């Protein structure tokens, strides 16, 4: 790889903080790549639509209706996105609590991904609020709706973002050459880890529990009492699947930042994650079988919804489980990536079913997202990728931390 390393660190001695930060704002790689050219217009359009939404209300840009009050900004960006950001807490658990050294190379990137995901999904959530400025009511106590699961989810979101930020902050400190800060932050990592995992488990379950109240309104095939638990399990293998995809892509694009050793370990890491995902999927499948029997789903087989359910279960859950097992045994990294993509699709479909597609199926007008909603949704993800790229090119996420930062 010929590309020179783009990481530079702030030289504290000369105290040129502002100049350093400004120089860091300049692009570090080619500006006019295909990716940039395609995504920039979408991002700009998305931002324009967001402004328009605030100027003219939700009706102007969305197809939200009285029958279907939550659209893709909540159902997709938040409910689906949160599952995919679960890789952060699983990897943190494995590396910090269980001390499994094997996955350390992908830890930082997963934490960064989780941090950005949660921040941007919170932004998408705020977008879909009718009165976003009143969101501070939950924080300041006007009033604390403690009986509400959404209250729990909101608070855990906020605290979890804090935890993720604390877990990622050593990299920021290394970038800014703040040695004392770095030492302090690594010292409190254990606190952030323990609380982060707890908060994460609870709000992943909480997202599922949100829909418990809508018992009559979600099709029985997707509504069951175990939704919180199922959502937690989904977040485990869904998060790891996204980590697989992110690692596969970013380790290719930013390969010049990686050491030889890391590149060699890539296969091993991906295959290891595949093993964990296959176990997760296996237990998930059997949980669904239990639910199938308990709720007597035989009655729905043969109907249109029943077929859709089977398609989701067999094609997007059982199939990737076998693919993960196969790729684990044959150590085939490409197959791991394929099964990860299918798994992510399965989680997307399942959660969209619960929150949108199988919700209020008797509504006279089915909800179909407008192009504006889709654009904004996509724009949010693209902005997230841009920020992700900006950080990787400047902070020690893939690249090793500077020598003074090691050994803490």
């Amino acid at each position, binding site marked *: 790889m010929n590309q020179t390393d783009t990481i530079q660190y702030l030289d504290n001695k000369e105290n040129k903080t502002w100049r350093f930060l400004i120089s860091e704002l300049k692009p570090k790689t080619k500006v006019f790549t295909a990716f940039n050219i395609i995504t920039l217009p979408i991002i700009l359009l998305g931002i324009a639509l967001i402004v328009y939404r605030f100027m003219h209300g939700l009706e102007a840009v969305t197809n939200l209706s009285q029958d279907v009050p939550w659209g893709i900004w909540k159902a997709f960006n938040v409910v689906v996105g949160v599952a995919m950001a679960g890789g952060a807490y699983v990897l943190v658990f494995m590396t910090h609590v269980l001390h499994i050294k094997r996955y350390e190379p992908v830890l930082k990137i997963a934490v960064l991904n989780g941090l950005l995901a949660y921040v941007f999904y919170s932004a998408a959530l705020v977008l879909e609020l009718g009165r976003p400025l009143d969101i501070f009511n939950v924080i300041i106590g006007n009033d*604390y709706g*403690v*009986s509400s699961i959404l209250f729990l989810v909101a608070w855990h979101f906020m605290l979890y973002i804090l935890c993720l930020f604390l877990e990622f902050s050593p990299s920021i400190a290394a970038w800014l050459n703040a040695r004392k800060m770095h030492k302090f932050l690594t010292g409190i990592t254990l*606190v952030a880890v323990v*609380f982060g995992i707890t908060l994460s488990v609870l709000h992943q379950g909480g997202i599922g529990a949100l829909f418990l109240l809508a018992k009559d309104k979600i099709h029985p095939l997707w509504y069951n009492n175990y939704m919180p638990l199922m959502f937690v399990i989904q977040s485990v293998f869904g998060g790891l699947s996204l980590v697989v995809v992110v690692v596969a892509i970013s380790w290719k694009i930013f390969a010049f930042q990686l050491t030889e050793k890391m590149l060699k370990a890539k296969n091993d890491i991906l295959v290891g994650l595949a093993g964990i995902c296959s176990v997760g999927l296996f237990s998930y499948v059997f949980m669904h079988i239990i639910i199938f029997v308990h709720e007597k789903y035989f009655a729905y087989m043969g109907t249109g919804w029943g077929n859709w359910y089977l398609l989701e279960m067999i094609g997007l859950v059982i199939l990737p489980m076998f693919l993960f097992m196969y790729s684990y045994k044959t150590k085939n990294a490409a197959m791991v990536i394929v099964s990860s993509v299918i798994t992510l699709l399965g989680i997307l479909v399942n959660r969209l079913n619960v929150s949108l597609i199988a919700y209020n199926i008797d509504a006279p007008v089915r909800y179909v997202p407008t192009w504006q909603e889709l654009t904004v949704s996509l724009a949010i993800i693209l902005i997230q990728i841009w920020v992700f790229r900006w950080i990787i090119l400047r902070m020690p996420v893939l690249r090793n931390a500077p020598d003074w930062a090691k050994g803490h």
Partner: protein
Amino acid sequence: MEAFYYTNIFETKGIEYLVTVAFFLLLVPFWMILNKKSKISQKFHEALSVLSVKRLNIPSGVYHSPNHMWMYMFKSGKARFGLDELMLRITGLVSVEPIKHAGDDVEKGDLIAIIHQKEKQIKVFSPLSGSIRKFNSELQNDTSSMMEDTYGKGWMYEIKPKSWISETADCVIAEDAISWTSSELVRFKDFLMSSLWKNSASQMAQTLQDGGELREHLLTELPQEVWADFENEFLGRPFQKN
């Protein structure tokens, strides 16, 4: 359920959340108190300076006994012995309480002195048999000569040995002394680790395991329990007699 009055099934939820928050806030100090490093290891963690064989001056012609006493036979036939440098570098400054005095006959392995450091002590056993000629009276007031000139002015006892040759058979001299001291240093580290584990100073033991070097006069900062272990396990009773 009789729905004629206002009920709230979640009425205690607010308080439960407060209790949970209190738990989180208290968990951190609770955990820290539980794992608080004992005073031993705290002091240990301050700068480590190195005690290594290279810094010991081991003169030739001097015998070292297994219980870390040195012995030297003068041409006149009298011998002097004292604590060797490794021992003193480990214990730090000590005071000497003589048990046997001039004119006493001792056998190898008899208790002849006790060295003290504050409330800690270690028994010193004679490496030779013979009749005690002198006790170095200087040591009664000021034992610094033991530290500064261990093998010279730091002698402890002068003795007329009975059977020098046979009794120095289990001692080392010259290059052997150096390598023996080296291995004793390693043995000391191992001993220290096990003693620290036993006395709940696991943090320090962990540092040792990671390759920390020993500080000078280490035992000065360690409590009586470690001294007792040092006496019994590390030094042992090398001269097993009746």
